[in-house]
């Protein structure tokens, strides 16, 4: 079974973010970059399927040169080869422009299952996987928390999260795009031999021209939703801040809880 996983490298979400001078994205200087949390679960799920049913796992990403470290991480976890959409024209794209580039890069590969995370932690549009499914003519299921493949019937049975903590159980034909929810599995740590092997696994660089796309179809130029600016959310509700040494703060809060909240 051929499986593809689309991953994204994002800034560490514990960082302090400042807005870049053009206000369209964050100032990336000095930030640490890591694999998008959701995508780690997607990579793990893909590797588990390969271990169970055989086949290969291709990991695909889009971004500047630095994102190779995220491809290497997926390869170290157990993916077999990487595709890096590595062209400045790809950058700054919305969900549609990104999905178009990713879908084009997998068109010739014809994977039976494509995994993505439910969303990225930075842009958080939660659309790329589903748009890819439409562009490739694949079935899809989003917010997936369980995957069982029946290769003989070319079917997959999945659970997806819905409101109130319930799950839909659905069956889909292959090929399919599944967007993976966090918590579906426990992503493995790359082993030392895994990290060594990953250095030798192939990564193919792909440009806009290689995909037969026009630069105006991808990146910011190909976006259907354009980011005008980033904003720091307005404080909608001013909390009364309690400050001082921990002992002091604890005393203040207990008085509030007794006299104002009346829970004590």
């Amino acid at each position, binding site marked *: 079974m051929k499986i593809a996983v689309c991953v994204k490298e994002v800034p560490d979400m514990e960082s302090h973010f400042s807005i870049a001078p053009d206000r369209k994205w964050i100032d990336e200087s000095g930030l640490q970059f890591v694999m998008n949390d959701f995508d780690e679960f997607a990579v793990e799920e893909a590797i588990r399927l390969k271990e169970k049913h055989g086949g290969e796992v291709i990991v695909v990403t889009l971004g500047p040169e630095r994102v190779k470290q995220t491809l290497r991480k997926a390869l170290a976890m157990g993916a077999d080869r990487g595709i890096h959409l590595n062209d400045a024209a790809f950058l700054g794209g919305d969900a549609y422009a990104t999905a178009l580039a990713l879908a084009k890069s997998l068109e010739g590969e014809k994977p039976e299952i494509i995994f993505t995370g439910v969303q990225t932690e930075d842009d958080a549009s*939660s659309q790329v996987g589903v748009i890819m499914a439409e562009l490739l003519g694949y079935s899809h299921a989003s917010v997936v928390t369980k995957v069982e493949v029946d290769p003989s019937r070319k079917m997959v049975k999945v659970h997806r999260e819905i409101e109130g903590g319930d799950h839909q159980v659905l069956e889909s034909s292959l090929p399919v795009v599944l967007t993976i929810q966090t918590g579906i599995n426990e992503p493995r740590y790359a082993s030392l031999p895994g990290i060594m092997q990953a250095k030798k696994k192939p990564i193919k660089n792909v440009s806009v021209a290689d995909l037969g796309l026009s630069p105006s179809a991808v990146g910011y130029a190909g976006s259907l939703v354009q980011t005008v600016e980033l904003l720091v*959310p307005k404080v909608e509700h001013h909390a009364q801040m309690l400050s001082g040494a921990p002992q002091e703060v604890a005393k203040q809060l207990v008085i509030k809880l007794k006299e104002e*909240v009346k829970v004590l």
Partner: protein
Amino acid sequence: MAEDIFFVAENRSGVMADVSFEIAGLAREIGEKSGKSYAGLLLGGGEVPALAEQLVVRGVSEVIGIQHEALAKYSFDGYCQALKQVIAERKPYLVLFASSSVGIDAAPRLAAMFHTGLASNCMNYTVEGGELFFERPGFNGKLRLRVKFAGQPPYFATIESGAFKQLPAGGAKGKVSLVSANLNPSEFRARLLEIVTPSKGGVDISKAPVVVAGGRGVGNKENFHLIFDLAKALGGEVGASRPVVDSGWVEYERQVGQSGKTVTPKLYVACGISGAIQHLVGMRGAQTIVAINKDPEAPIFNVAHYGIVGDLFEVIPPLIEEIKKMKG
């Protein structure tokens, strides 16, 4: 006519979801600001007329019911094909979905069918010089992205629950029209088999008068005893954010937020929880919210009534002591 703003209504087990009235209110408001009319779209089987009634008696001026046996259960094929037909015919300017399990699954596919943009998880909007802008969260809720559409309508958006006021009740009763869809269910690629409720561990935090919730900031499973100790001192239950449940530090039933429980206790104490929107929708109805977080910029402080910027490991132990002293 690119004059319509559609909203796609959702029900939960036959009762119109609150978010349907929120996106109805938003559709009407954007319509008023941009000189457009609005209407609700409702998909389903035989139950459609009764559900449409729930919308029009609340003042929704027009509801288009799309009725087909194959729409009685959700499927992306059924929903996307049926909506594509109505949208292709009516050519709306904008189609609003809830940021829900339906919105996240159907809206991106439908927008891609029209090669038009979808703004996701929107929480605010403006109309400036006739142009529509949405604001949506990014960077784990730490920043907002202000976006606009490029290209031609129909434009699409998914809207966060609780971000907009419900359509006010009252007003003239609206009209319902029923249309059918041309669907071939045997060609559907995905099929809903059943809906299951994952195993219950007997914990129900939704009725607790006090909920003390821990987030990623608690650090690990062993540290969580501190959260249990504080909950015990306050006579409450323990809640948790999504990453905590994903990591297996506490049971799934304790998760508060969009994919977990919605709680409205008298007191909610958020410890080491940054306050992603998915968490906030599950707890912002609490009467009093106390937030303890070492990051002064954490969005949780935007909804908290009392805030403490500090290390929860230093703050909680004396807090437990003080509560015990106060209780005698």
